[in-house]
């Protein structure tokens, strides 16, 4: 089992009232799954994804990730954990504008202290795999949205994470580009990467092996 959420609650206090963002979430994710999280706006999809990604905390419940108890870990260990095992893909790509495609791909490797030769090989491999060798020296602003997201996914994959978290990865793309990205996810999943995506679109959700529906912070 990759991760397990037990009775997760998350709330904010507003004007003396407790507003629940997540309410009693129980979720088991096995390695190799492709899960789509769906639900209307404000139902807590992104919050859940951030909790899973350890970018955000929670107020009650237990979270186990690969036999580590996330809820009892200190901030720093938690950060180390997600840095090692989780790759993030964002709706608005979040590439660094000042860096070229190649340099954007290289950045996670720098923080993981890979040697220069290794980094070169891994970046070249990734450029090859995503067919963007010709674009390696371009800056993000010179790419189309679909291409930028491609780079975003490549960057998330480059340090071989166990889990990819994607928050509406196709939200800013047109349908054709979106389809290509979803195909890519499918292919990655077939190769063994676990993927959890948040999406609004029924069609995109179908790519997953399992769909979780959220409403007002509850799983339905």
């Amino acid at each position, binding site marked *: 089992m990759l991760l397990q959420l037990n009775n997760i609650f998350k709330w904010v206090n507003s004007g003396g009232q407790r507003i629940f963002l997540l309410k009693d979430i129980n979720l088991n994710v096995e390695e190799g799954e492709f899960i789509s999280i769906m639900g209307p706006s404000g139902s807590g999809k992104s919050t859940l994804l951030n909790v899973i990604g350890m970018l*955000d905390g929670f107020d009650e419940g237990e979270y186990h990730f690969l036999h580590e108890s996330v809820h009892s870990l200190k901030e720093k260990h938690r*950060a180390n954990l997600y840095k090692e095992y989780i790759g993030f893909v964002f709706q608005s790509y979040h590439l660094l504008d000042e*860096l070229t495609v190649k340099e954007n791909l290289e950045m996670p490797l720098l*923080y993981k202290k890979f040697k220069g030769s290794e980094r070169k090989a891994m970046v070249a491999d990734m450029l090859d795999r995503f067919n963007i060798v010709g674009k390696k020296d371009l800056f993000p602003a010179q790419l189309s949205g679909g291409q930028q997201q491609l780079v975003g996914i490549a960057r998330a994959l480059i340090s071989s994470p166990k889990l990819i978290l994607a928050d509406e990865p196709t939200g800013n793309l047109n349908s054709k580009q979106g389809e290509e990205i979803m195909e890519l996810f499918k292919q990655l999943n077939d190769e063994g990467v676990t993927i959890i995506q948040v999406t609004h679109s029924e069609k995109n959700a179908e790519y997953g092996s399992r769909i979780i529906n959220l409403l007002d912070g509850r799983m339905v």
Partner: protein
Amino acid sequence: MLKNHIKIAWRNFIQHKWYSLLNLGGLAIGMACSILILLWVQNESSYDTFHTNSDDIYRLTAIANEDFKAAVSPAGMIEQIPHQVSEITSSLRLSAPFEALVEIDNQKFKEEPIFYADSNFLDMFTFPLIEGNATTALAKPDGILITEKTAKKFFGSEKALGKTIKIDNRDIFTVTGVMADVPPNSHLQFNMIIPMAYLAKTDNDLINKVWDSFNFYGYFQFEKGAISSQDDVTIVTEKINQIYAKRQPEFVITFNLQALKDIHLKSNLQIDLPGHGNVLYVNIFFIAAFIILIVACINYMNLATARSARRAKEVGLRKVIGAGRRQLIFQFLGESLMISFISLILAVGIVYLFLPAFNNLAQKELLFSLGNNNLWISLLAIALITGLISGSYPALFLSGFKPIKVLKGRLKLSKYNLVFRNGLVITQFVVSVLLLIGTMVIYNQLNFIKNKNLGYDKSNLIYVPMEGEMWGKQEALRSALSQNPLTSDFSIVTDLPTNLITGDFDIHWDGKDPDSQVLFPNLVTDQNFLDVFQMKLANGRGFSKTSSKNNDYLINETAAGIMGYNAETALGKSLTFRGDKGTIIGVVKDFNYKPLQYAIEPLLMQNREFGSIAVIKAAPKTTESTIAALENIYGRLNPAYPLSYNFVDGDLDAQYLGEQRMGTIFNVFALLAIFISCMGLYGLSAFMTEQRFKEIGIRKVLGASAVRLVNMLSKDFLKLVFIAFIIAIPIAWFGMNKWLQEFAFHVEIQWWVYLAAGFTVLFIALSTVSFQSIRASLASPVKSLRAE
């Protein structure tokens, strides 16, 4: 990793050229100012440290009373004290510096300054000889030491040693040594040294080894290590005072020992050698250098936070991808260090470019040679400190962003953050207000000095000192001057009333408290003096033909007060000065006969028809023809000497040269500091406007006018300026009053000075800010709202 950071920093730098230039420019100007000031401070603090024995040499100074402390002491005392105080190994006497006519191979030069010095001069002080033997150079009375520069002037490329020099058309001296030029950071500045043995042939003080006439500068060399603390100094001073009290029981004078290294900066003594500095200015400037650097750093911080909204995304992303907080702190500190080192290079360039101008302004010979290791270390330290200080805030601030917040939406800044940044801005405003008030007060005071009514008319007064044959031809001079209508308005005096350095305790009047000891400066004048200087009498009359014979005295109003009289009652009272009993025939209205740093002291005037200076009052616009007439008269009576004349008002102005210079330097740096602040303010207002871009859009859509928006955006700054103003006032009041205390005559700081400074800063701030806010409020709202 480093390469990646440099790449990011560099591309950011290029992409936001305008910001980068503001940053670089501010830091570079700030650093250049600081480097220049620190060079100056370093030079001022290095005076007399080049002497090998500098730690063991002290100068004997005299204290007559609280108001009159002098740098001089008696010749006999200086000579004999070492025999009675075991800690002192040797003593040295120096005369007052003087000017002389020097003749070499029929070529005549006026040379100054020249000192008479005891024969151990080269032994006590470290002035290395280029030619000659240091132990015997001053042994014979007809030897003379000259500096290398002077040797070149006199003898060109010829060897100077052994050559002869005729001085004042009388005695012939042989060059016994050529000294390396005197370092600029020596309180003793001279071109020639003549053995004291020469003066000892004629000088009464030296012949009689007197203990009661204060005419020499005395230096003591102590045994190595004998003086290790202030207590040791106090003990020796006490010993000296006891010796003196025993020897001269009729005088209540005490002495002080002044460390050689303190002479330049910490001397507020009268009758001191010219050209000494002021520790107050050194401290002020040192602080100013620091403040300017801080202001520049604050700029960087503000501009970096201004860009934080843009860089927040990068931070969030790096964190998600794997960067730790420490790595981000290093990244941002590295960036600020990079900027600060580039600024340093620019600053070094600026310093090179402006050092000559600065030297001119400060009248210094500062050197900026990059071959000096210490200089390198200080420069690197400046860059490092600047980089770390200016980078610290952005680094800590930016690296603290929570990734989820910055990636998801807008960056919300905490309240603490706002307080901190406002604090920075207030600091800058406080500095600006302070500097402006300082500038205005200094300007007012200097203006006040220039225009102060001294009690006499200083304009068009030409003076010529007696030289050579003229001493014996004063009758002839008198008649020659009075025959020419251009020069007929003249007076012959012993001293000019510009900076009187005489003083005597030997004065008695009826009813004088026998225990009181009042020092009376005295001035010896002819009958024309009051007319020529256009001084006013409070009562009585000026000197007449019989005054000299009758021992008539004139006193000033202060003296009358001290004697227990007033202008009315003083008249006709008897007075004994230096044993000459006479009558007070007039009371002169108080006039300033010392620089305005000093209050008006009592003054006694005696009548003699002979003196050492002729003062001629030229009629307006006839200065040139008057000088021509003087040249004619002097050329006839005293052909051996070229006419040397000066102007009284010029001398008076020269007394405040130091203050004028400090004032100008202060103004220049004040303006630069304010300019740097403005650069930062401009960046900050850009930041504020960027933060509120959306708000501005919404307000515009809802109907706000551009004027209202500008108002809204500028209001915050108004508050900050006001707070800064409140903080700055007491600091300015305290600081400027401290400076003004240096002058016995000074302006009071008027309330409008504060207001003017406040409004000026407000105006500067608002115009800087409104540049941004007007642009923002005129922008199309569609743009700002769509950006979301």
